[in-house]
């Protein structure tokens, strides 16, 4: 099933008289269950693309269809609802709430959802178990390693059972070992959990966890291809 479809997406940032064309009309589609890596050097427009696909921003021109419905037909409040119910985000800088336990951090999206409160704990515990951090449940972010923090962030993205997980350079702030674990986790979520994953990265090695790669350069899609040297999923998850 076609989950995401972009038609001639354009994004222009105006800063005074200077217009920056971050995206110059990109078209592609992503099916449910895919694991797509969006690749490109910094400034290529890949983050802008993620913001558009993630309902965090609106395109200047062109159309974006999510589950067959035009992005421009969503109000701000409806966009917030989509982000809450259908999308999960994993950021390079983790963005966990400081001085707040792992459990509370993971429960955060549920606060803004329609999920009945009696299910919150169960959902959060199961998401934390999925990322192998059940033994850290009452720790605060400052007591965790970088890799563990990113896994908490993944659990937070999972807790609402979203259609798509957007991961923006998830290994960018991690050492290679932790990075590998995090990527293995995302891959397992895709292959075993059936989650659609859109990964933003500039590292070829990291992208090899995905099945398909979109190469972006100067706001245009340069290449759209299946990854031949696909890495097998690591089996570290407890």
């Amino acid at each position, binding site marked *: 099933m076609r989950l995401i479809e972009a038609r001639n997406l354009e994004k222009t940032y105006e800063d005074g008289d200077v217009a920056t064309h971050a995206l110059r009309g990109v078209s592609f589609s992503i099916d449910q269950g895919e694991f797509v890596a969006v690749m490109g050097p910094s400034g290529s427009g890949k983050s802008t693309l993620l913001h558009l696909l993630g309902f965090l921003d609106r395109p200047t021109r062109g159309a974006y269809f999510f589950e067959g419905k035009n992005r421009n037909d969503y109000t701000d409040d409806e966009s*917030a609802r989509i982000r*809450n119910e259908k999308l999960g*985000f994993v950021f390079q800088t983790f*963005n966990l709430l400081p001085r707040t336990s792992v459990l*509370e951090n993971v429960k955060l999206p549920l*606060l*803004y*959802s329609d999920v009945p409160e009696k299910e919150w704990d169960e959902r959060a515990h199961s998401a934390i178990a999925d990322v192998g951090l059940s033994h850290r449940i009452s720790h605060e972010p400052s007591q965790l390693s970088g890799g563990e923090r990113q896994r908490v962030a993944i659990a937070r993205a999972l807790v609402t059972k979203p259609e798509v997980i957007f991961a923006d350079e998830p290994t960018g702030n991690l050492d290679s070992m932790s990075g590998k674990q995090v990527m293995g986790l995302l891959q397992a979520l895709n292959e075993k959990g059936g989650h659609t994953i859109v990964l933003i990265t500039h590292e070829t090695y990291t992208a090899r966890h995905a099945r398909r790669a979109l190469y972006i350069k100067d706001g245009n899609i340069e290449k759209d291809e299946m990854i031949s040297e696909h890495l097998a999923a690591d089996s570290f998850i407890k």
Partner: protein
Amino acid sequence: MTLTHTIRTALTGLHTNRLRSLLTILGIVIGVAAIILIVSLGKGAQSLILDQIQGMGPRTIVVIPGREPTGPTDAAQIFSDSLKVGDLAALKRQVNVPGAQNITPILFGGETAAYKNDTFRMTIFGGDTTIFNVFDIDLAEGVFFSANDVRASASVAVIGAKVKEELFGERQAIGERIRVKGRNLRVIGVLSRKGQTAFFNFDEMVMVPYTTAANYIFGIKYFHRLILQAETEMDIPRTVADVERVLRDQHGITDPEKDDFFVETQADLADTLSIITDALTLFLVSVAAVSLVVGGIGIMNIMFVSVTERTREIGLRKALGATRREILTQFLFEAIILTGIGGIAGIILGALVAFASATAISHLTEFHWTFVFPFSAALIGLVVSAGIGIIFGYYPARDAAQKSPMEALRYE
């Protein structure tokens, strides 16, 4: 998001920044505490004054010679000798003022009393036998002067507790003679200690029959005051009217504008004094209210800092599905909870200080000062501080809500 979660989220936000939250509300705490303290002390002073007026009896009516002062330059004392013996007799005639009781003239003035080598500056207070009922004063020992003493201008005196202490110390005073203005007065009674009342300090008084005071001590043929009591509080207006009619008749006055006396009731006095204390309290509260506004601006300042500092958190919450309204509500609640807590803390602090002050005043002075908890001021303080939270918290909260999630996430 449900209300419970909004409040819990706001509380968590405040708890994570405990010290800052505490410093932020200090302005509100002090402002509200000041208002509570001022209103409490104001009410305390008012009830003290009213109590003392009540001490003279709410039914008491005072006739004062001279015109009622109409302005600061008005020579109110122009007819200061207008109350004469004839007036007293006329008022005492039952048919004239049927509702009047305990009619007594009063003469008073500062004099020096001497016993052997000791002297003491006191107030001579001349009255009729009923004076002891009117002012509700008791004897520690001895007797009051009698109707016979009054009729005979007897040289007898009932002395206050302080006078006794100063002149006699531990020694027996009853039967001794004190000298006032060259006249020997035999002490027949000592008053029990009463403390300062509204107008007089009976502890520092020497009470004599009004005839003695008029003939031998002051040497005058008029009275400083005429005091009487209405039978019931309901009778006060009628009794006042009767007194005015009788006295105008006595003085041959037809135009009330030209009265050479005026009648004051305790109710009038209580009203006047209440207005004065209320006005003073209101004035001080307005001054204290300024600090609440300053506190509110402090809240706004800190909320802005907080919103800027937590830009990433706001972006994250929005990315996770928080709507504009939910962000606005969260920050608004943080402000309202802050000021609400500040208001409650201020009420408690203000009440504690007021209570301590009341206790201290009662112990260190002779006033019987009672602590009054001003419920209305507490309620107003709470509402106003929460209102300040809404007013000064709204703009920063709106600022937070309007942040674009993407911009907010990028913010370093």
